[in-house]
């Protein structure tokens, strides 16, 4: 049992003074209302800064950072407890990357207020040197939990996990990258060691869940949604782990109409989402939290539809 002082310190440190009082202020208005956390995300944007050109066969006029930012701002206006993530392959796909090396992509993401990203295989396309050269333009952390960078120049340049406090809710985030061998030229990723994503996922979700008492655990993944062959993917990760609430994915450019539900090792529900590529779609999952139940209440899937904004 903690004494008062320790408890107070723990509460203030873990939740952050501001978010504690914010949540309290909201709680005063409607004590029984749920706390809503909005998770927004993108993946495989591949340097698509401008919308697709008006004569594009499939995506004419769609995407673009300004349109994306406007949508994000609308959600933030509606709910200040919003987090924004990217799941890698920020780089490569338009001449913006060839000419400016990713500087512009990271500047724009910082301006949009991204909270974190993980690394995709194409984020190594200019080598670790190339990534490091532009990393200073990112005002958000890169979270990589299964790449061991200790023997590379990226040592201590990424985080294994991060905890965000939103409205008193602790959101723990870790990140998983894909096996680089055979996918990325060895000279580009050097002595990076790829570690088993399922093992690392179980390890970090346990740390976030148990040690840090997170209310919501999110994995930023660049493993891919699913494969014909027996290769680790988000669909496999979801059922072979426990403690993860949400897997945000990338790599396979999979357009999901909405987040898909899976059952994890302990019978709990885990959502997996991925929003195609090129910044065409913005993923959104709203979590509603209630306080005080001894037993965790399984969420019901609520309203879910695909909204095309003209």
């Amino acid at each position: 049992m903690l004494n008062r002082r320790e408890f107070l310190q723990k509460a203030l440190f873990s939740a952050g003074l501001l978010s504690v009082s914010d949540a309290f202020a909201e709680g005063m208005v409607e004590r029984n209302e749920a706390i809503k956390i909005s998770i927004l995300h993108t993946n495989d944007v591949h340097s698509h800064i401008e919308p697709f050109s008006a004569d594009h066969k499939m995506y004419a006029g769609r995407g673009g950072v300004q349109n994306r930012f406007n949508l994000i701002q609308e959600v933030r206006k509606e709910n200040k407890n919003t987090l924004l993530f990217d799941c890698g392959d920020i780089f490569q796909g338009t001449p913006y990357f060839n000419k400016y090396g990713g500087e512009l992509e990271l500047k724009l993401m910082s301006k949009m207020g991204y909270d974190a990203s993980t690394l995709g295989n194409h984020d190594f396309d200019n080598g670790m040197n190339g990534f490091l050269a532009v990393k200073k333009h990112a005002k958000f952390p890169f979270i990589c939990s299964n790449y061991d960078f200790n023997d590379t120049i990226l040592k201590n340049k990424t985080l294994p996990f991060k905890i965000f406090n939103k409205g008193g809710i602790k959101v723990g985030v870790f990140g998983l990258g894909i096996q680089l061998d055979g996918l990325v030229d060895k000279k580009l990723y050097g002595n990076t060691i790829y570690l088993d994503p399922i093992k690392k996922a179980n390890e970090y979700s346990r740390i976030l869940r148990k040690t840090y008492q997170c209310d919501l655990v999110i994995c930023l993944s660049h493993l891919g949604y699913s494969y014909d062959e027996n290769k680790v993917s988000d669909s496999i990760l979801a059922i072979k782990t426990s403690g993860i609430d949400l897997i945000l994915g990338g790599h396979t450019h999979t357009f999901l109409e909405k987040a898909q539900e899976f059952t994890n090792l302990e019978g709990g529900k885990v959502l997996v989402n991925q929003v195609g590529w090129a910044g065409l779609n913005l993923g959104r999952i709203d979590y509603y939290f209630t306080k005080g139940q001894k037993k965790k209440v399984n969420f019901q899937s609520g309203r879910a539809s695909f909204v095309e904004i003209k």
Partner: protein
Amino acid sequence: MIKKAYIFFIAIAFLLGCKPYSIKRTEKVNTSVSDTGSVDSSLVQIYKPYKISLDSSMNEVLNVSLVEMSTGSPEGKLGNFVSDLSLKIGNELYKEKTGNVADFVLLNNGGLRTFLPKGNITRRKIYELMPFENELVVVTLSAEKANNLFEYIAKKTVDGGTRKQGVPVSGNIKVVLNGLSPKDIFINESPFLGKEYKVITSDYLANGGDNMTFFLNPVKYEKIGIKLRDAIMHYVIDEKKAGKSLDAELDKRISYVE
């Protein structure tokens, strides 16, 4: 006053900290990003100077294509086009450098990142097609590894499977497939012999990319000294200078047993 605040915080901490939060329900919506009609242009302002500088060179029309070219399996016009020009440009440079010529070209469709439209081909299109900094190399393969190469082509070229993309090769080879095995292989009109072959490919693939493990530990690995994108660019510009538009066709360089 300070004491009051202290008690107040303890009250908050107890209110919020005693029991964990739990998820009551979720809502899931993926939203299409398109014109939101907003007047905010803060991000456009950030990228505008970059765009102006980039557009001046990227919007230049380098040549005209007579057909739309895209990748395909067992063959696609785009793969055929890029492989054939890689053989031409690659061998010109390789011969100049070493006096030798390579036997054929092998690339991968995953590396061709967009289709080429019928009509104007801008410098931007070439960058979109080949954004990577990969360079052309010549890999000399043992007879055994060359055989593995053709088995790889067969495995990658099953039609109908979603993950089977096909493998682009130059038109001077003919491969007839029977299910998952190569049945007949001709290189420059000669049947495939158990001997060493020189293959032009990208350094990415030569280093085992796209699981092309047959390229690893080769007899010889030589750089040609040109990036694949630059090879494409040179070819497109050279054809224009020669008064020729761009064209590609399907010629059954990889096909199935009838």
